[in-house]
C-alpha cells in the first residue's frame, strides 16, 4: 500500500464528495473548540459561512457531475469508479483488504438523483436554520451528515455502505439530542436504537451475501469480498433459493424500518417532532430515502426473484403504510407529527411501485424518492417555522396565522398541495407513474391507494384550515406566544422554502429537468430487462 495510491483515491470526485464534508466539518468543529470564548465568538460566523461554502461547493460539484454525464449507462456500469471489478481489494481500492473490504465508489442513474438531492438539501437546510444556537457545531454536524449520506449512495462496497449507513445516525443523533424539542432525549435515543436495531438485520443479510461472494483470487483471509459489483455480476450469486429469501427478508427489515414502513415506523414521528428543523428536513428528505435506495440497490437488483416471490408482502407493507399512515395522519393533533406520518404514507407508495415490476412503477418509485425529497423538507421547514415563530405545533391552538405570516402560509400552501399530489408538482408525477403501473399490474386494487389520496387531501386541507385560515378578522394566536408579537418567517427560512417550492413546481411541470425522470426511467428499464427478467429468460 503506497501513499500515492491514497492520493489517487482522494482524486476520485466521489471520494472527494464523501471526504470533503466530513473532514471539513471535523476541522471546523476542532477550530471552534480550540479557541477561547472570545475567539469562538469571533469565529462563529466565519465557520458558519465556511460550512455553507463547502456545502455549496459540494452542490456545484454534484451538479457538474450531472451536467457532464448523461447517465445513459449500460446495466451494471458505474461512473467514476475507482477500481475495476477484478481488482477489488487491491490498488486504490484497498481498505481492509484482509476481509475483502474495498473502497469502491461509483455512481449511476439510481444514485445520482439521491446524491444531487443530498447536496441540494444540505445547504438549504443550513440556510433555513441559519440562526441555530451553537451554529458552528450545528452546521458542521449537518455537513458531516452530508458526507455520510453521500457515502451511502455512492459506495459499491457493502461494508462501506453499511458503515456510512450507520454513520449517518451519529450526526442526526446529536442534532436531535442537542437542538431538539422538549422530549428530545427520548426521541434521539429511540431514533438511534430503533434504526440501529433494524439495520443489524440488514447487516446479517449483507454478511450472508458476503459469504456467497467469491473473490478467492484476491487471497484474503476469507476469500470473499463485500464488493457489490462482484455480487451483481456473478452468475450464480447465492444459489439456494431459500437462502436468498432469508437474505431478502433480513434486508427488508432494515430497509423497511428506515423508509419507514408500518409496523416499524414509530421511531419516525417521535424523531421528527423532536428534531430541529434542519434535522427533520434531512431526515425526511434524504435519510428515509436511504431505505428505499438500499431496497432498490440491494434488494431488487440482487434478488429480483424474491421481489416476485414476496410481491404480496411488499404490496401489503406498502398498502398498509399508505392507507394506515394516511388515516393516522387524520387523527393527529400535532402538525409535525401529522407531516411525519404523511411521510410514512408516501413511502408506502415506493413499495407499491417496486412491486409492479414495471419500469414505470419503479421509475415512479425512484421519482417518488426524489419528489418526496424535495417536498417533505419544505413541509418540515414550514413546521419548523411554526415552532420557531409560534412556539407550538398543536393544530388546534391557533387560527388565521396567515394574517401575520403570509409568507409562511404561502409556503405551507405550496408544500401541502405538493404533498397531496397536486398536478404540476413533483409528487404528482410519482403518484401517477406508480399508480398507472400499479393498475397495469394489479388492477382494481388501485382503488385503495387512490381512495387514500382523498384521505391525504383531507388531512392536509383540514390542518391548513385550522392553522393558517379562519380566525375571523384577527388571528387567534396560540397560548405559547404569551405576549410576543407574531411575525413572519425570516428571510433565511424564506429563501430555503422558496427554492424547494420552485423546484417542486419545476419537477412537476418538467420531470426531465436535469435529466431526472429520464435517467430514472432508463435505470428502471435496465433493471427490468437485465435483473428481473434476465436475458436468458427474455426471448
Amino acid at each position, binding site marked *: *500500500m503506497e501513499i500515492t495510491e491514497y492520493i489517487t483515491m482522494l482524486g476520485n470526485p466521489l471520494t472527494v464528495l464523501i471526504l470533503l464534508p466530513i473532514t471539513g466539518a471535523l476541522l471546523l468543529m476542532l477550530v471552534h*473548540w480550540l479557541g477561547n470564548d472570545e475567539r469562538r465568538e469571533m469565529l462563529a460566523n466565519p465557520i458558519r459561512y465556511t460550512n455553507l461554502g463547502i456545502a455549496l461547493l459540494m452542490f456545484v460539484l454534484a451538479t457538474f457531475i450531472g451536467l457532464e454525464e448523461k447517465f445513459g449507462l449500460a446495466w451494471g456500469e458505474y461512473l467514476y469508479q475507482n477500481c475495476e471489478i477484478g481488482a477489488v481489494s487491491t490498488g486504490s481500492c*484497498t*481498505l*481492509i*483488504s*484482509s*476481509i475483502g473490504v474495498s473502497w469502491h465508489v461509483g455512481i449511476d442513474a439510481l444514485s445520482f438523483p439521491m446524491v444531487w438531492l443530498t447536496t441540494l438539501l444540505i445547504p438549504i437546510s443550513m440556510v433555513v436554520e441559519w440562526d441555530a444556537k451553537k451554529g458552528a457545531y450545528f452546521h458542521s454536524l449537518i455537513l458531516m451528515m452530508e458526507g455520510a449520506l453521500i457515502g451511502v449512495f455512492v459506495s459499491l462496497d457493502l*461494508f462501506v455502505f*453499511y*458503515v456510512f*449507513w*450507520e*454513520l449517518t*445516525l*451519529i450526526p442526526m443523533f*446529536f442534532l436531535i*439530542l*442537542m437542538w431538539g424539542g422538549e422530549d*428530545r*432525549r427520548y426521541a*434521539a*435515543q429511540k431514533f*438511534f*436504537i430503533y434504526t*440501529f*436495531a433494524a439495520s*443489524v*438485520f440488514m*447487516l*446479517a443479510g449483507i*454478511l*450472508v451475501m*458476503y*459469504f*456467497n461472494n467469491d473473490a478467492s483470487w484476491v487471497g484474503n*483471509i*476469507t*476469500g470473499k469480498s463485500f464488493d457489490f459489483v462482484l455480487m451483481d455480476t456473478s452468475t450464480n450469486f447465492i444459489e*439456494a*433459493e*431459500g*437462502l436468498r*429469501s*432469508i437474505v431478502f*427478508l433480513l434486508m427488508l427489515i432494515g430497509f423497511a424500518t428506515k423508509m419507514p414502513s408500518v409496523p416499524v415506523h414509530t421511531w419516525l414521528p417521535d424523531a421528527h417532532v423532536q428534531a430541529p428543523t434542519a434535522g427533520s428536513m434531512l431526515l425526511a428528505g434524504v435519510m428515509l430515502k436511504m431505505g428505499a435506495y438500499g431496497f432498490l440497490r440491494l434488494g431488487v437488483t440482487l434478488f429480483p426473484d424474491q421481489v416476485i416471490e414476496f410481491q404480496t408482502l411488499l404490496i401489503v407493507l406498502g398498502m398498509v403504510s399508505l392507507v394506515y399512515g394516511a388515516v393516522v395522519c387524520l387523527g393527529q393533533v400535532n402538525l409535525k407529527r401529522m407531516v411525519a406520518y404523511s411521510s410514512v404514507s408516501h413511502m408506502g407508495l415506493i413499495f407499491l411501485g417496486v412491486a409492479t415490476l414495471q419500469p414505470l412503477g419503479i421509475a415512479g418509485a425512484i421519482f417518488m424518492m426524489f419528489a418526496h425529497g424535495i417536498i417533505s423538507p419544505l413541509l418540515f421547514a414550514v413546521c419548523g417555522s411554526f415552532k420557531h415563530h409560534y412556539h407550538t405545533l398543536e393544530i388546534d391552538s391557533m387560527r388565521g396565522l396567515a394574517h401575520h405570516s403570509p409568507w409562511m402560509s404561502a409556503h405551507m400552501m405550496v408544500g401541502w398541495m405538493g404533498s397531496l399530489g397536486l398536478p404540476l408538482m413533483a409528487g404528482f408525477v410519482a403518484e401517477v407513474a406508480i399508480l398507472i403501473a400499479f393498475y397495469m399490474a394489479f388492477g382494481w386494487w388501485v382503488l385503495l391507494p387512490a381512495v387514500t389520496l382523498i384521505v391525504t387531501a383531507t388531512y392536509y386541507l383540514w390542518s391548513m384550515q385550522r392553522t393558517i385560515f379562519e380566525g375571523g378578522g384577527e388571528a387567534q394566536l396560540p397560548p405559547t406566544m404569551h405576549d410576543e408579537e407574531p411575525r413572519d418567517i425570516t428571510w433565511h427560512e424564506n429563501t430555503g422554502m422558496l427554492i424547494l417550492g420552485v423546484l417542486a413546481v419545476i419537477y412537476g411541470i418538467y420531470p426531465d429537468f436535469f435529466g431526472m425522470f429520464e435517467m430514472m426511467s432508463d435505470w428502471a428499464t435496465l433493471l427490468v430487462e437485465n435483473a428481473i427478467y434476465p436475458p436468458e429468460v427474455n426471448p
Partner: protein
Amino acid sequence: MNLGALFSSVNMASTLIPEWILLLGIVAIIIVPNLGKATFRLPVPGKAWRIPYFIGGKRFAFTSDPRLPSAIAAFTLFASFITALLSQMGEIGVTESCVAIRDGVARAGPEWCSDGSMILQIDAFSRLMGMIFTAALLLAVIANWDRLPATPHHRIALKTQRDEVVESRRLHRLLNNRRQVDFALLVLMVALGMSTVALSANLFMLFVGLELASMASYVLVSFNKETQIGPEAGVKYFIVGSVASAIGLYGISMLYIWNGDLSISSLRSSWADGPNGMATIGLGMMLVAFGFKVSAVPFHFATPDAYSGASGPVAGVLATASKAMGFVALMRVLIGITLADDGSEWTILIGVIAAITMTWGNLAALGSRNPKRMLAYSSVAHAGYILAGIAAIGALGPGEGSELIATAIIFHLAVLVTFKLGAFLVIALLECEGRGHELEHYHGLARRDPLIAISMMIFMLALAGVPPLAGFLSKLMMVSGIISSTVGDVAGSSLSETMDSLSWVFWLAILIFINSAISLFYYLRICVVMFYDETDRNLRLSRAPMIRIAIMFCTMGAIVFGFGILADVLASAAHDAALALFG
C-alpha cells in the same frame, strides 16, 4: 534444571525476550526504589569510613519519586511489547520457537516444537496475545503514573482535628512510592503470568501462569484498602476466584489421571481417540475456572462487584487483559485439545452458555446506574459474544470458518483493549475527583471536557458495535464467521426448507445482533447524559495528563482499528495468530 541452556546462543536467548524483560523489570522494581544512601561503616575505630552499598538508607530523590515505579513498569512493559512486536515481525529473535524440558534441561528452538516435552510455545498466537496483555497493562500503568487513582469515594468523615491529621497521613502514604512500587510490581507479575498462559503448551504450566496473574490481580482489586469497598471487592473476587481455580485445578488433575501427561499435544491425540467420563468431567471443571476468568454466566457474579470496587485502570485490566487471558486458556483447552472434526461435545454447552451470558449481561447492564457495574455487565455480554464464536468453532470443526472466527475472537480481544479499557480510564479520570460511580457524575461531561466526552462516546459506540469503530469490525468478523459456518451448505428451494436446514448456530448470530441492539440502549444512555444533562458542577476535570494520554491512545485505537489500513494490519495479524492456534 539448567536454565543456562536457554542462553546458549543469541537466538535461543531471544526466544523468550519479552518475558525476560518482564522478569528483569520485576527485579528492577524490587531493587531500584530501595536504593538509597545506605552505607556500611567500616569497623575501624575512630574512623568514620563508610562504604556505600545503596540498598536502603535515606533514599535518593529519584528513587523515592512517586513516578519512578510506574516509569520502570511502563518502560518494562513497553520494551516487552516492542520486542514481542519486533520478534513477531521477524526483526529480532525468532518468530516461531518452543521451549522444552528434556532431561532436566530447558532447551529452546523450533526443533522442539514437535517434542512431547515442550512446555512453552512461541508463535504468532502467543506473541500477539502477549502484546495484547502488555498493551493493556501498559495503558493501566500509564494511567497510574503519578498517583494512585481514585481518592476513595467512601470518604471517612473528618470529625476532629486528629482525624484530619490521620487522614493527611493516609494520603501522604498513598503518595509515597511504596504503594506505587507494590502496584507496579503486581502489574508486572500479572503481565508475566498472562504471558506464561499465552505461551504455555502444557496445561499445568498454563495453570501456573493463570494463578500468578490471578493472585496478583486479587491484590490489585483490593488495592484501595483504605476504602470500605476495596477490600470487600478483593475478598469476593479472591474467594470466588480461588474456588474456581481450585475446581479448575481439580479438573486438570483428573485429566492427568486420565492421560498421564498434561502437554497439550498429548492430550489432543488422546482426546481424539475418545475421552472417558473422567476426562469429560475434568474438561467441565476446567471450563468453570476459565469461565470465571472470562466472567461467563453463572460464574460472573463477582465480576461487577470486583470492577466497582477496584480502581478504574485495574477494572480495565480485568475487563480486557484478564478476560483475554481467560479466553486464551479456554481456546487452548477447547480448540487445542478437544476440538473434533464434526461437532465437539461441548458445542451445545458453550452455545447455551453464550446465549445466556450475552443476554444476561446485556439485560443486567440495562438497569445499572453505576457505570462501572454497567461496564462489568457489558463485559459479561461481550464474553457471551466470544463464547458464541467458540461454540460456532465447535460446530464447525477445524477449517477456514473456524479460523475466521478465531481471527475475530483474537481481533476482538485486541481491540477490546482500546475501547473497554479506554472507558475505564475515563472513569479513572472522574475517580480523581472522587466520582465516577454514579451515572449522575457523568452529567454534563461534554460541557466540562468535550474531548473526554467525545472519547467516552467513541468507546461507548465501539462497545455497542457501531461502525466505523473497532468494536463494529470485531463484532462483524465474529458474526460473519458464525454465519459463514452456517450458510455454507444451506440448501432448500423454499424459505421454510432453508430455515430447517439452517444450523442452530445461525440463531446465535441473530441473537448477537439483537443483543447489540439492546446494548445500545445503555451505552447510548452514557452518551446522552454526557451531552444532554446539565450539571451544577462546572469545575474542569482533573488535569491528570497521563490518564488523558492513555485515553487518547485508546480513542485513536478505537477509530483506526475499525476502518482503514491499520484495521487491515491487525486483522491479518489476528489471522496469523488464529492459524497458529489451529496449528
